[in-house]
């Protein structure tokens, strides 16, 4: 159980890069990616935020509205001020694409942007492939720095390659991006805290320099990252049979959730709910931004013992064939007079 290097398990990092950038990525072959093992997605974001603060102390991070609540805490505790860009469109329960594009255009050149690679948390609303291309193009024109938080690769569509599409689009467009990866959900390793932070650099020399600086941030935080989860990940991804098995299992998880989305929506429509519910199946990943108000959520909790965050976010993973009917009925009850 010896210490890992400060940058973590080399094997795990290598496999993580293949998963995210592509098995035959030229950037991997050219050794242009500075990458270190991190404490799941949180730790990867924190390392990046600290790195951003140290080397670009007068910058801010643009985060989508809404975003995972802890993103606010991470950059704030790292001393990086936060700005926002429009993302969720409440009326359509979809993407505010024109607002998003405007905010990208209006941000000063060279701004740092946080993007959810797939399965946006908390809304489940992702840009389409075509929209991603436009986002990438506009960001390139502005010289913005894209930092991707990818916590659900494989978990969103069931296909890791597909879920990495946004990243691949940006790479094709020549962005030098940053990426936080987590194995909490897609490998079910939640409590093991396994993730990876990578930064694409201009060349190998720069990647070496950047990695060494990332290590300098990790050392006074926790010295080196935990071993156990990293061993699991590197073993699974490094063995063709195990990797195939994993791909099957992650698809099963994703499919179950996709199935629950369909069932929940169907139930609500069959109950004759006057409200539109197609966003349940339009949205993707673990969460559904139901559109319910805090008051409606409170009723769900108090009257029906259903627990969820007051922004109306439902974790679809908590639904199963045994309870989806009950939940649909409860949602209908609290929303039918809306």
């Amino acid at each position: 159980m010896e210490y890992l290097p400060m940058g973590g398990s080399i094997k795990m990092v290598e496999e993580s890069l293949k998963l995210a950038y592509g098995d035959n990525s030229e950037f991997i072959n050219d050794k242009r990616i500075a990458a270190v093992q991190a404490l799941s997605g949180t730790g990867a974001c924190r390392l990046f935020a600290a790195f951003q603060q140290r080397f670009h102390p007068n910058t801010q991070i643009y985060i989508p509205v809404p975003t995972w609540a802890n993103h606010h805490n991470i950059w704030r505790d790292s001393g990086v001020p936060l700005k926002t860009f429009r993302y969720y469109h409440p009326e359509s329960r979809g993407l505010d694409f024109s607002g998003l594009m405007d905010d990208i255009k209006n941000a000063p050149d060279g701004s740092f942007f946080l993007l959810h690679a797939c399965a946006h948390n908390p809304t489940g609303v992702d840009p389409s492939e075509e929209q991603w291309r436009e986002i990438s193009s506009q960001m390139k024109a502005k010289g913005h720095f894209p930092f991707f938080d990818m916590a659900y690769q494989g978990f969103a569509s069931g296909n890791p390659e597909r879920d990495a599409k946004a990243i691949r689009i940006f790479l094709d467009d020549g962005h030098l991006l940053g990426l936080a990866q987590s194995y909490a959900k897609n490998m079910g390793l939640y409590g093991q805290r396994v993730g990876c932070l990578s930064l694409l650099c201009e060349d190998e020399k720069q990647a070496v320099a950047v990695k060494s600086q990332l290590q300098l941030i990790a050392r006074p935080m926790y010295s080196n990252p935990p071993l156990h989860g990293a061993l699991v990940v590197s073993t699974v991804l490094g063995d063709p049979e195990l990797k195939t098995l994993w791909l099957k299992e992650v698809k099963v998880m994703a499919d179950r959730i996709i199935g629950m989305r369909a069932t929940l929506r169907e139930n609500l429509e069959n109950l004759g709910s006057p409200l539109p519910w197609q966003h349940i199946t339009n949205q993707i990943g673990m969460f559904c931004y139901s559109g319910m108000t805090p008051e409606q959520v409170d009723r769900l909790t108090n009257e029906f013992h259903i627990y969820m965050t007051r922004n109306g976010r439902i974790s679809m993973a908590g639904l199963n064939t045994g309870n989806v009917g009950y939940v649909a009925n409860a949602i209908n009850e609290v929303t039918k007079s809306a």
Partner: protein
Amino acid sequence: MRPPVILEPSTTYSSNSSSYSPSSDRRLNTIAKHFVNHVQMDSHNISPSPTASSDSVFAQIVRAPEDAILGVTVAYNKDTSPIKLNLGVGAYRTEEGKPLVLDVVRRVEHQLFTDGSRNKEYIPIVGLADFNKLSAKLIFGADSPAIQENRVTTVQGLSGTGSLRVGGEFLAKHYHERVIYLPQPTWGNHIKVFTLAGLTVKTYRYYAPATRGLDFQGLLEDLGAAPSGSVVLLHACAHNPTGVDPTLEQWEQIRQMIRSKSLLPFFDSAYQGFASGSLDADAQPIRLFVADGGELLAAQSYAKNMGLYGERVGALSIVCKSADVASRVESQLKLVIRPMYSSPPIHGASIVAAILKDRDLYNEWTIELKAMADRIINMRQQLFDALRARGTPGDWSHIIKQIGMFTFTGLNPEQVSFMTKEYHIYMTSDGRISMAGLSSRTVSHLADAIHAAVTQVA
């Protein structure tokens, strides 16, 4: 400067070569100019050149130097000599020079793996509850009044480093003093940990090079001169890097000085059980402080004493004046942890909790721990004897007087360099050697190297 961009006009036009004519040529040029003008304003229609690379935001970044301690192992690994010796990082090695996974740890791991009821869900932000309680009992004593009165909050941390960092950040956010006093010298990473946590680092005299022992007078003077309320970092036992510990009598005087100046003690306990072989004996200094009813912080590590190095298992305890304060402190600790890594890793803490809560496993652990401590004490004696046998100039009694994993040899950087070059001995340039890296086989090689360094290099 933007690299040249290959234009791909979005409208098509006749490019049939058989109809090529000067007028087509003129028309092409006009259209091309039209697009050139648009390039500056709207790059929407441009396909990026495959060879274009934008300026990286990291272009100015220089390569960081290797970590002073971990870099030793990096250098060691590169060395191809069969007689090389790694006395750098403080990781225990067996007589055969191998890392050791404790039997009791292996057994518990196996139990954990075969327990089908276990899962890998997130543990709470503060870590596993039983791990925390048991860790507090281990360091403060099961009968500690502070524990009985619920005045202790304990959170699981990423080994010693992570626990120190969380404590430091908590203090920087919530404590009225921003200065922490570190002993001179101290573990190199302490300075970075506390600086990045947001505290200002100062030092107090600790090691006396002349005696290779404690500069007790200097220590008391410097603590006495510290502004009231300042934080003081204390190595609970087996001081790193010097191996020089105060006696219990001296600890009592230190305690009085600290309490009289209302200084806030922050203990780093990375070697409980490793110093003397007794867990309780090694915790005495901390317990002295707890017994007076005052407040303190304590970071614990299970890296060495349970051999769990890479699993990153540790704990931060804060002893408060009241249960109410402890509870509020804990809520704030969570806010420090959440944006750092959300929650700590489950694996190592599960192992520790299982061992600490089972009487038989605990006893077996104490036996294995004592064996490790004894082997190190044995190595100290062997090295001392070997140097005496060679008539190496100087007083080497500090080797057997110092405590814990390290010996502060008193060798200077030039001598260390010489030993690395000529004898393939890897150690930190401050002259610190990890006794755990020695074995009966390799003691004479080290003794030869020290002898040569002392007699040939100033």
